[in-house]
């Protein structure tokens, strides 16, 4: 992935250099051609010489301007593309974390663990995953593209599983905790995943 990015940067850099070089070259050539015509004054009458001067200078300037515009557009495009790549990578990490959360949540919900150590490792993983999800959502990259309802759908899943995890651990000091059903969890996961997938560009 990094090699591809470096290659893209190299190609865009070369294209920019080429555009500037073409602009400069065309300017120089037009200037040279104008000077040549002036020295020879064979091809045109004296009355037309100022016109050729202006035309060649204008063409050279336009070449440079086109190179500059291309350069600015290219920089803007690269910046947007890199921001999109960064956002997509984070959303992909979020989706992958949600997939793992799904697996472990169902293990917790279906009590498909045999020892308390296994339960503890599932619980530890889920806690870590929830922290990671919260951190990702708080990052500047995702904060701007996830609106309040998108974030809420992910946070509702975390909230439900956190309560379930505490209940399964029997260390509930919470006031109002209800168990999550399998269909509730599936629905929460579907909503959370849907919110994330819609952000992939």
């Amino acid at each position, binding site marked *: 992935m990094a090699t591809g990015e470096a290659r893209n940067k190299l190609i865009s850099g070369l294209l920019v250099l080429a555009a500037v070089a073409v602009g400069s070259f065309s300017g120089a050539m037009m200037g040279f051609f104008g000077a040549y015509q002036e020295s020879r004054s064979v091809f045109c009458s004296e009355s037309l010489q100022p016109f050729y001067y202006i035309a060649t200078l204008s063409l050279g300037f336009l070449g440079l301007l086109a190179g500059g515009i291309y350069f600015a557009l290219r920089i803007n495009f690269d910046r947007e593309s890199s921001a999109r790549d960064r956002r997509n990578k984070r959303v992909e990490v979020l989706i992958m974390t949600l997939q793992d959360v799904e697996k472990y949540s169902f293990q917790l919900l279906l009590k498909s663990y045999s020892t308390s150590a296994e339960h503890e490792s599932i619980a530890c993983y889920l806690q870590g995953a*929830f922290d990671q999800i919260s951190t990702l959502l708080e990052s500047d990259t995702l904060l701007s593209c996830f609106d*309040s309802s998108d974030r809420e759908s992910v946070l509702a899943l975390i909230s439900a599983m956190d309560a379930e995890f505490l209940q399964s651990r029997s260390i509930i000091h919470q006031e*109002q905790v*209800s168990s999550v059903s399998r269909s509730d969890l599936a629905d929460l996961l579907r909503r959370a995943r849907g919110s994330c997938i819609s952000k992939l560009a």
Partner: protein
Amino acid sequence: MEFREQFLQDLESSEWWSDPKKTLVLDFAGVTRLGPSWANEVFAYYTKDNRKPDEILQKIQLKNISPVKLETIQVELKNGYRRGKE
């Protein structure tokens, strides 16, 4: 629970809730992690008297809180309120 008992004892009285002049400001500057269970213990508790989430957040003002942390609290308040109604 400890947090509530230590810092939010005034909120136990119904007078505090009925007095419009009384508000509480919680500053979250420097808070890096806010778990749903903590938000549930601290905030959803106050939905027990059928108080609406908005009403609670009007009386308890949250300063320097990130949108994600605020939404974590809002989700817990909504869940608490919904469960209270059931």
